[in-house]
């Protein structure tokens, strides 16, 4: 088997199944021991947690690839990003369909009045163009640079996700701060790497004294 085949036929399907794990787990739990005294809150929060985790996992691909030297990781990035989108959608569906039971009037009011939901809504809105432009065709049509620039929005979405979580908790802010710190490290790595590249480029371009 070539490396390409190994990735296509082994790694990708395995990661795909792994990514379905959290969803399978909550469905399994709901059908057996149940989700506790407040199952709707449980499903909202569980899916919200995994939405944010997948955003961070997808953002960790490039640093992971560069630090570990595993170039094949890049080929999982789209799938991980789309799983992040899927869990965000499930989280929002759980809110709309279970928590508010399609009470659109109430939902509209909450989006306007509750700042943490406003923030969540902005994050979801920003995610949609990223999901739409995730195909190879779209990358080609947009051109690599424009596509890359657009997809840097993922960091903004990650920040909004952390902020949404931080604003939602009552007093124990440890968890959202942990997520925000991970995001800060990922972003910090990218900024430093970009800074280094720019420095190297400038050095090459400046005429050296003879």
């Amino acid at each position, binding site marked *: 088997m070539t490396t390409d085949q190994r990735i296509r036929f082994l790694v990708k399907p395995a990661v795909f199944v792994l990514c379905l794990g959290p969803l399978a787990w909550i469905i399994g739990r709901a059908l057996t021991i149940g989700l*506790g005294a407040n199952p709707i809150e449980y499903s909202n929060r569980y899916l919200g947690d995994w939405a944010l985790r997948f955003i961070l996992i997808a953002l960790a691909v490039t640093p992971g690839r560069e630090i570990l030297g595993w170039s094949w990781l890049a080929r999982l990035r789209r799938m991980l990003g789309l799983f992040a989108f899927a869990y965000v959608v499930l989280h929002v569906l759980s809110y709309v369909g279970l928590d508010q*039971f399609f009470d659109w009037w109430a939902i509209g009011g909450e989006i306007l*009045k*509750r700042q*943490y939901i406003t923030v969540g809504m902005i994050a979801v809105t920003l995610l949609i163009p990223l999901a739409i432009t995730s195909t190879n065709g779209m990358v080609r049509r947009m051109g690599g640079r424009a596509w890359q620039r657009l997809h840097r929005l993922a960091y903004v979405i990650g920040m909004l996700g952390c902020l949404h979580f931080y604003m939602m908790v009552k007093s*124990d802010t440890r968890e959202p701060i942990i997520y925000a710190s991970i995001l800060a490290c990922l972003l910090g790595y990218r900024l430093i790497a970009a800074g280094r590249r720019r420095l190297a480029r400038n050095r090459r371009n400046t005429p050296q004294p003879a």
Partner: protein
Amino acid sequence: MLIKSIRASDAKPSEITPKSVYMDRRRFLQTAAAGAALASFANGPAGAAKIDGIKKWPGSLTSEKLTPLDSIASYNNFYEFGTDKSDPVRNARFFMPRPWTVAIGGEVAKPATVDLDALLKPHTPEERIYRMRCVEAWSMVIPWVGIPLADVLKRFEPTSKAKFVAFETLNDPKRMPGQAVPSLQWPYVEGLRIDEAMHPLTLLAVGIYDEDMPNQNGAPLRLVVPWKYGFKGIKSIVKISLVEKQPPTSWNIAAPNEYGFFSNVNPKVDHQRWSQAKERRSGEFLRRDTLMFNGYGDEVASMYTGLDLKANY
């Protein structure tokens, strides 16, 4: 979940399923049963003890379905044992609610520090079924066992200077692991105005469903004020002081714009971050309307005439 009752005429699973699969299923069921036994152990190593001589209180709520003990004792906001709702049942497992003393002091003629059993002895425990409305917009119907706070306080003879009552939870990070984390300022403190404390609905609870209070619900002694949000019901009380000035309260210290001193259930005054107009009753799918004073308005509204309930949330 599909649960089918088996009639004698039904085929036995062994008749229609290959034996190996059937045996596997039995093993699975045995494992599940062991898991359930382990889960019931979570309620405390000693097992809950029945409370004797309980009198039924005629005012109990009978028109709404009781929340099962399972739900009441597994979904708890009790930050002393962790901030996740599933933490207290785990982390309070080995908490020892005896021996226990309560210090009653301040503006009383007879201050004393009393052993809990001695404190309770002169009183007959009552079963009182109340609605419990959490500030997080969920609710339950709970059959508490307890005694009116007023009956207890009167024994210590409050003076004319006693305008408020301040309560304090045990502060012992070795026994309450959540206190190792500054998720709130420890010890947890709460307070009531004297007329609220003396109100006949205000209960010092010692049990649920005729049994000793589960650790995770605030053993051995907690406050229940059914027309206020649940967090006013301070748990594992070690100190009760009658005071002249309004005492500080934990959630008000943590977020003054979100949690006021009164914290009366009020569907018209929203929490900063969510609406209080409706609530999700444990076990129900659709939200139900939240009632003014949690449905106890006839009994308590007169205490607040002339008070702006929006400003005094």
